[in-house]
């Protein structure tokens, strides 16, 4: 017997931020996913660092990410609370976005039956509270098992 993937508790998590990453977290606080795009050459950069890896310029615009999809994922066993509890899993997921080519976000897939997770599956963000920020997690857009 297996249950849906766990939703981690981030309420004690202090998210470290710097000048370049803070706008990402300002976006998630408003339930928006945005990524930095070079104002000079249009290349997305991730992580949100001080220089464009393509043209080496500094300034960026923060741009809405677009539709998220699974690029890859793994399934990790989580110790269950007792013998009667169903086996649980945590599903780390690597997410790509329709409107931010080259960016991959490392996150967690929640409320998903492991058999339903698949590369290219469409996702919807789900917002979880952290100590000083709002963390983006993801759910399957179509949670039914399609295979």
């Amino acid at each position, binding site marked *: 017997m297996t249950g849906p993937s766990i939703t981690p508790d981030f309420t004690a998590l*202090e998210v470290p931020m710097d000048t370049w990453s803070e706008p990402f977290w300002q976006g998630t606080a408003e339930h928006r996913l945005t990524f930095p795009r070079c104002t000079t050459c249009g290349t997305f950069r991730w992580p949100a660092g001080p220089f464009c890896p393509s043209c080496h310029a500094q300034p960026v615009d923060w741009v809405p990410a677009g539709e998220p999809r699974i690029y890859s994922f793994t399934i990790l066993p989580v110790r269950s609370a007792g013998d009667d509890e169903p086996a649980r899993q945590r599903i780390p997921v690597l997410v790509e976005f329709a409107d931010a080519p080259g960016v991959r976000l490392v996150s967690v897939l929640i409320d998903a039956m492991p058999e339903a997770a698949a590369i290219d599956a469409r996702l919807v963000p789900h917002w979880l509270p952290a100590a000083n920020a709002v963390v983006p997690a993801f759910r399957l857009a179509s949670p039914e098992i399609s295979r």
Partner: protein
Amino acid sequence: MTAKATAAIVGSGSTPYYFRGESAPQTIYELIGKAVHAAAADAGIGLNDIDGLVFFAFGFDTGLLIEQLGLKNVVFAHCVSGFGSGMAGMFDLAAMGVETGRAKNVVCIGATQQVGRRVGQALGNFAATPDNVFHRIAGLGGPGQALALSARRHMHRYGTRREAFAEVVMASRAAAATRETAFRRKPLSLDEYMAAPMLADPLCKFDFCLETDGALAFVVNAVDRAADRPHRPVWIKAVAQVADPAWGRAFFWLNQTDDAFVSAGAEAVAQRLYARAGLGPQDIDVALLYDHFSPLVIMQLEDYGFCPRGEGGAFVESGAIRAGGTIPVNPHGGHLSEAYVVGVTHVREAVEQLRGTAVNQVAGATTALITGGPAPVPMTGAILSSER
């Protein structure tokens, strides 16, 4: 055209291998000291002849080492950057040191002791940063969990099967069966593999390498001294170090390019290495591939050109990496079955193969490939040869 080597490995020394933590109460510096003593003896030199030290993966405390070991003449002490990725690069530094005359007897050192912290949980060992917080959110605590994402992508893109991962492990066990230094010597069946619990789907527990302690050291000489040593020199034919941004921080960030994501990050290393050696994959007799996780062996076979990109799964399933196959891989059992010491047990095996003294000797082997581990750049690889 084949370039002449300018330096050689002339001494090899090792401690016994221990299960994780069981080398205590010796410190890692005691282990290193024992390996250095053994390597110097093997090379027929005294400790006072050692004038160079080379490390990788953040290295060791040179001051402590020279005090504790009583090394009096060290004038050259350098470290390759990167993690296990930098392992083979040690022989680049050592060769540069001796061929320029900066030092005469350079000792390359690799060691690990997993007391209190585990390499397998390395991603959780660092202080939180704006970058690595995402791995914490995901729950990716170790390299194996993060590399499971690459393995799944390889399966998705190329149709690679779990049977191929299993074959890498089973071939490793088959090799280790006759090797007394190996911890996992019992044969493994496909049924046993498939029945094992998943640690990071699609990786089961058998796809993860051992966690062990130990230290190894290797003495490097320039060509003018190498012939005077007791053992036949193992020539450093070529070494390549490449910091390719397509691979970058690899599983520490997971934003490799789409093509690099399903590789072991060594394609550019392989090209540079073969060009520097004037050799190709067809010239390699035995491949000592850094096998921290079984799918990465398949990806390295592709990176180093032993089979076409994407065909590594079928290649290993054909039996190609076993003794007598197209390219024997890790006849010592590797990190999966013998022991894990951040890649340097593979150098020991290369030396034994090229001296003709290996437990599972590849008949007539004259050329060996050793690779640094798929990890943040620089990625490194080296070709060693019994012929200059």
